[in-house]
């Protein structure tokens, strides 16, 4: 799924994670013998987030970009899941 505005864009690959996983649980919650084997399925989001409009070198700080873009992506994914 690709999303684009005139300035930035995102390419989103959504893949169901293979297999199952066991989550560690606190002892107080282990009522049954196999209680710690809590099976969950998962989705892996692979996001390519990029700029479309030209970006000057003086505008670019990888430190700021990564921190702020990851925040935008997390917000966007939550919004997408709600829809």
């Amino acid at each position, binding site marked *: 799924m690709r*999303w*684009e505005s005139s300035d930035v864009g995102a390419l989103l690959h959504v893949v169901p994670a293979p*297999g199952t*996983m066991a989550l560690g649980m606190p002892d107080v919650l282990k009522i049954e013998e196999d209680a710690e084997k809590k099976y*969950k399925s998962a989705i892996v989001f692979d996001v390519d987030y990029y700029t479309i*409009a030209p970006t000057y070198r*003086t*505008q670019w700080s990888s430190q700021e970009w990564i921190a702020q873009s990851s925040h935008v992506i997390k*917000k966007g994914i939550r919004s997408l899941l709600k829809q």
Partner: protein
Amino acid sequence: MDSKLGRSEITSAELVDVNTTSIASPPEPDPIMFSREATFTGSISLSDFQGQRRVGTKPISIDVLYQAREAGSRNFNRAIELLGLASESLSEARDAIGANDKVACASEVMRFEQLLQPLFECREIGDGFANVINTIHMAIANRKGEPLTFEQINTLWRIVRTVLSGPFLNFSESLVFVRDLSKVGLSLNNSFFQEWASESSTVGTEQSVR
């Protein structure tokens, strides 16, 4: 072994409960306007991008490039805010000169000067940013209270706006602005520094050519 592998893979990803029917259901065929929490709108396409990618000619705005200010660094956020105020003050000063209102102009220039100290405190952004702010600060101080001319205010306004749209200057790039300021009589008035700056600039250019 498998469970360990599974755990290590999944912890790095976003974990959610999955309803298998929702994965299998076909997506909406039409583009969706995505405006719920985003600060701007765009369209979603569900197929691979076809054809030549469109590339705009207008440079990206710093507000769009860094749109999650709550996750940004304190210095960056503060610098952008202060540069915005500085640009506004200088713009008002230009208007005041145009209206031949010297008092309003001086007032706006003083407001601009008050922003230079907090701007310099944001110098972690980069050496170039620090150099530009420091040069402006010292150049105005060296005028010893003489009012700035229209040309000087105009140059300061242009420089502040350029730094606002691209604050991550390196030192060599900042020397262009230092020279621009010097041309309109706003300089450090320090011959040693000026010679050293011009030599650094020349060396930097030669190295980049090599």
